C-alpha cells in the first residue's frame, strides 16, 4: 500500500521552483528562481504588514479589545504572500480561522480586518463574524471558517463553479496539517480529480494542530502525498522562503488553469505563537521556536537578501517598517474608535 503512495502521478516538470526542502532541514535548498528587486521589496512590505498587524492584534487581545479566539499567523507569512504573488486576478482564496494574513494578502483594508477583530460596525462582517469568520466577495475571499476541514469542501465547490462557468479562475484552498485528517478532505480530493476541478489544495504544515504534532496525529507525515490514491500531484515546498512558494504556486496554478485538475502544495512552515491566544504551548521547546525565528524567519530572509545585494539600505528598510507601522496603527486606532454595530443588526442578514 505504502508503495503506491510514494511518488505521485501527474506532471512533475522540473521547474526552477520545485523544492523539497523542509523548514527544519533547510541545508540543501535547491535552486530557486531569484526575485527581482521589486519583487523582494513587495514581498518584504506585504509580509511585514501581516507581521505587524498580528503583533498589534495580539496586543489588543491582551487589552480585552479583541475577544474569543484569536489565531495569529506570525511565522507563516511567506505562504500566503508567495501565493498572492503568483495568483491572477479573479483567483479565489478560502481558509480556516487563522485568516488575518490571507485577508491582508487579498488586498483587504487593514482597518476593516482589525475592526472585525474588535467587533465594530466598520469590520468586514459588520462586527458580526469576528476573527474566525470574515469574508469579502469583492476581493474573492471566501472566509474565514471555524470548523476544521470544512473549508476544503467549500473551496472545492468554488472550483466546481469556476469549471462550470469556464472562467479560468482557480480556487486556492488553504488548510492546516491537522485538518488533513478530516474525512471531507478526501471526499473533496476524489471529486476534484474526478471532475478535474481547478483547485490548489494548500496545506499549511506548521508542524502542530493545536498541541498535537504531525507525527502524533498522522500515520504518514509527507502530506504532499495525501492525494496519491486519487492521482493528484503534490509537492513539499519550503514555506519559509517566499520565492520557493511563489515558484511552486505558479506551477500549481498553471496546472489547474490548463484543465488538468487539482494540485497539492504542502507548505512547510511554522507558527511562532501559541495555537490561539490562550495556548501556553507547552508541547514544544522554547529552543525549537527560537531556532526557527533566528534561522528561518521568512521576513529576515528577504531582508538579508535586500541588504546583501545592496537593493536597500538599513534606513530604507526602516522607512518601510515605519510606513507599515503607520498603516497598522491607523487600523488599530480605527478599530478601537469605530462604534459597535447598531443593535438592530442583531436581526439582519439571517435570511433574505
Amino acid at each position: 500500500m505504502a508503495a503506491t503512495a510514494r511518488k505521485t502521478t501527474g506532471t512533475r516538470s522540473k521547474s526552477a521552483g520545485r523544492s523539497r526542502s523542509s523548514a527544519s532541514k533547510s541545508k540543501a535548498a535547491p535552486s530557486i528562481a531569484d526575485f527581482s528587486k521589486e519583487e523582494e521589496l513587495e514581498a518584504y512590505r506585504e509580509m511585514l504588514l501581516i507581521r505587524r498587524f498580528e503583533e498589534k492584534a495580539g496586543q489588543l487581545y491582551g487589552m480585552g479589545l479583541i475577544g474569543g479566539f484569536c489565531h495569529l499567523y506570525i511565522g507563516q507569512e511567506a505562504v500566503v504572500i508567495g501565493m498572492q504573488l503568483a495568483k491572477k486576478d479573479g483567483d479565489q482564496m478560502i481558509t480556516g480561522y487563522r485568516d488575518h494574513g490571507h485577508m491582508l494578502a487579498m488586498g483587504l483594508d487593514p482597518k476593516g480586518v482589525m475592526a472585525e477583530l474588535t467587533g465594530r460596525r466598520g469590520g468586514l462582517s459588520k462586527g458580526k463574524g469576528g476573527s474566525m469568520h470574515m469574508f469579502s466577495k469583492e476581493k474573492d475571499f471566501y472566509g474565514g471558517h471555524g470548523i476544521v476541514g470544512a473549508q476544503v469542501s467549500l473551496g472545492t465547490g468554488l472550483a466546481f463553479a469556476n469549471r462550470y462557468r469556464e472562467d479560468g479562475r482557480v480556487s486556492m484552498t488553504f488548510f492546516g496539517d491537522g485538518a488533513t485528517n478530516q474525512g471531507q478532505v478526501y471526499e473533496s480530493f476524489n471529486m476534484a480529480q474526478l471532475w478535474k476541478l481547478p483547485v490548489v489544495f494548500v496545506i499549511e504544515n506548521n508542524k502542530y494542530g493545536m498541541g498535537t504534532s504531525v507525527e502524533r496525529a498522522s500515520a504518514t507525515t509527507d502530506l504532499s502525498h495525501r492525494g496519491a490514491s486519487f492521482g493528484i500531484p503534490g509537492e513539499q515546498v519550503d514555506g519559509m522562503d517566499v520565492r520557493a512558494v511563489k515558484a511552486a504556486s505558479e506551477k500549481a496554478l498553471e496546472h489547474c488553469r490548463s484543465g488538468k485538475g487539482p494540485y497539492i502544495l504542502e507548505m512547510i512552515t511554522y507558527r511562532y505563537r501559541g495555537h490561539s491566544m490562550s495556548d501556553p504551548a507547552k508541547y514544544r521547546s522554547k529552543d525549537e521556536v527560537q531556532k526557527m525565528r533566528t534561522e528561518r524567519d521568512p521576513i529576515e530572509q528577504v531582508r538579508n537578501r535586500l541588504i546583501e545585494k545592496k537593493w536597500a539600505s538599513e534606513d530604507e528598510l526602516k522607512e518601510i517598517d515605519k510606513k507599515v507601522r503607520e498603516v497598522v496603527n491607523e487600523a488599530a486606532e480605527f478599530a478601537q474608535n469605530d462604534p459597535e454595530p447598531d443593535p438592530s443588526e442583531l436581526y439582519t442578514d439571517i435570511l433574505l
Partner: protein
Amino acid sequence: MPIEILMPALSPTMEEGKLAKWVKSEGDSVTAGDVIAEIETDKATMEVEAVDEGTLGKILVAEGTDNVKVNTPIAMLLADGEDASALEGAAAKAEAPAAPEPTEAPAPSAAPAPAAPVASKPAADPDIPAGTSMVSTTVREALRDAMAEEMRRDENVYLMGEEVAEYQGAYKISQGLLEEFGPKRVVDTPITEHGFTGLAVGAAMAGLRPIVEFMTFNFAMQAIDQIINSAAKTLYMSGGQMGAPMVFRGANGAAARVGAQHSQDYAAWYAHVPGLKVVQPYSAADAKGLLKAAIRDPNPVIFLENEILYGHSFEVPDMEDFVLPIGKAKIEREGSDVTIVSWGIGMTYAVKAADELAGMGISAEIVNMRSIRPLDIDTVIESVKKTGRLVTVEEAFPVCSVSSEIGFQVQERAFDWLDAPVLRVTGKDVPMPYAANLEKLALPNVGEVIDAVKAVTYTS
C-alpha cells in the same frame, strides 16, 4: 510618559488571574517579545510578553497576588531616557480605583414592589444523605473526578478525543488522567470527529465503554450521523442484541465572543432522538453525580457541559460513590408564587433572578432539570400545580427548543392549574454574533427572567 503594563486577558473567558511570578525585576531593561511575568488562570500558566521596550520602572502588583482583574495596571515601563521620577504622577493615577464593572443584567426597571421580601433558600438535595460533609469543587474538577472514579471501577471505560491526553484537555478537564491511566485508556485522536466517533460506537458495540470528548459540541456536528444513526438506533435495529453503552461529552453552548460557529446549544437537537439520553448539568455536584451515572448507563448518553461553568465552584458531597439518577430533576429552591424551570447554565440566570425577586416579595421555586431526556416532567407539573405559573430559562434558540417541549407538556397535563400562559426566556432567534454588544443582546439575561416572572404573576 511611562507606559502602563496591564493585566492581559489570555482566553475568551478570563476575567481575572493570579500574578504567579515576575520574570523581570524593577530596573531591568525589556525589549518587545521578552517574557516579563507569568500568569496563572484556572486553565493554564501563561507568559506575558512585553509589547514595548524600555525599563521596568515599578511593579504595581506583587507576585503571588490572586484574583488580579484583567486590565489592572501591573507595572510601569519607562521609555528610554525616562527616570523613576516620571513614575510618580503616573503611578498615582494607576492606583486610582477602577470604574465599577457594568452589571450583566439591566436592573429591573419597575420601582421596588411594595411587598415584603420573602426568604429564598436553597432546598436540600434528597440524593445527599443528611450530615454528609461537603467539599468546594469546580465543575472542571468534578468532571475529572467522575471519570477517574469510573475508570478505576471499570477497566472497559476509556477516554478518547482531541487533546485529551498529553495536552490534558483543551479545557483541562482530563488533567492527570493520562498519568494515572496511561495512553491505552486516555487516547489522543487526530482531528477526525466523524471517524473517531464511529470508531468509538463500534468499540461500544463490542463491549467497551467509551467516553468520547468533543472539544466542543459544535464539532460533534461533524459526527452527528454516527451519534444518531449508529449509536442511538442500533439497540432497536438489532432487536435488543447490541447497543452503544457510551458517553459523548464536552463543552456545549456559548462561551464568550467565539462567534456563530462555536456558540450553539445542542440540547434540543439530541433530545429529539429516541435512543439517546441527554444530560445537562449545572453545578459541580450535578456534573459529578450525573457523569458517573452516564458512564455506567447501558445507553448512549449525551453529556452537555458548559465552558463558562467549568471554573465555577460548588459544594460537592464527600462520598465514596456519589451517583445521581439520570431523568430526575432537582428542586433547587422552594417557592410558592412561580416556578422557574432551567438547566445547565440557564440556572445561573434563574438563581440570580430568584434572589432579586425575593427582594420584591415574589417567591420563586426553581426546578433544575439536570436531564433533558428522559425529561422529569412530573416534578415540573407538581411544582406548577403549587405555583400556577411557569417560566422556563435556557440559552438555546427558542424555536423547537426544550422550553417548547416543557411548555407543551405542561399545558397538556396541568392546564387547569395554570393562572397565566407559560413564558420562556431563551437565546434570541439569531446565529451568535461576535460583537460584544450584540452577543449580550443575543443571550438571555437576569432582567428578562424577572420581567417574565412579573408578567406571569401580573406584578407591575
